[in-house]
């Protein structure tokens, strides 16, 4: 990572990516998951992960790509990258 980001900034980036790619507005990351968001399908998930990688200048592992299935997990993974 090139610079640190606080949680709020990560949430804003994530909500922007999700709203853009899933074509619906998301105001909060609270409780937001693939489980409860029908449009967050397997194809969109790949696009979302790639978009976050581009936006944030990082690369998730394959295991993370498959397993980051809710907003909190994604934020935690990004924060971990920034902390390292």
């Amino acid at each position, binding site marked *: 990572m090139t610079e640190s980001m606080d949680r709020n900034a990560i949430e804003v980036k994530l909500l922007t990516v999700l709203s853009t790619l899933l074509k619906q507005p998301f105001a909060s990351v609270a409780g937001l998951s693939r489980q409860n968001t*029908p*449009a967050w*399908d*397997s*194809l*969109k998930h*790949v696009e979302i992960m790639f978009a976050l990688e581009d936006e944030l200048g990082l690369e998730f592992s*394959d295991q993370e*790509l*498959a397993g980051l299935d809710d907003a909190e997990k994604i934020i935690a993974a990004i924060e971990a990258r920034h902390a390292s």
Partner: protein
Amino acid sequence: MRHDIRVEGHGYRLRPIADNDAALVVELRSNPELNRYLHAGAIDIPQQIAWFHGYYERPGDFYFVIERRTDGLPEGVISIYDAENGQAEWGRWILRPESLAAVESAWLIYRTCFERLELDRICCRTVAANEKVVSFHDSCGIEARRMLPRHFELQGHWFDAVEHRVDRTAWVTLAPRLEKLARALARRSRHD
């Protein structure tokens, strides 16, 4: 039917299913996370092999294992069936929960349909309540879709289906996006 079609992708390939894949199919179809919208199938390996023997004799039915190219690890199964008069249906699509093969396996099955079997059109029918899979087909960019009321009977209950249809003209439009995503995933995947 017995076939020898192998289709290579970027990170995955399709290969013919065989008797020694029975355990894989039973495992996938027995997973409650995956089988909610599936017809009841074989509950053990002998039953699955018996089902395979019927399948081997059935014309127009092409059952595949989706496996990683790097190490041959199977990540799921997929089929084309009822292939006749230039058209067919695809389905029996099950992937391990952690698999990233969804996009590429869909791309590969369409390639099989249009490039190897030289069909003119193919459809996929999904239980309407299976919103994630319906959304996947929509996300592929398939515009030809219709509702089929009370199409599936599963465990004694009737379910509506959503049918997505792709013909050669539509495939030309859909293919580049699916391949781009499949290639991007394969390029970064190390499977270690």
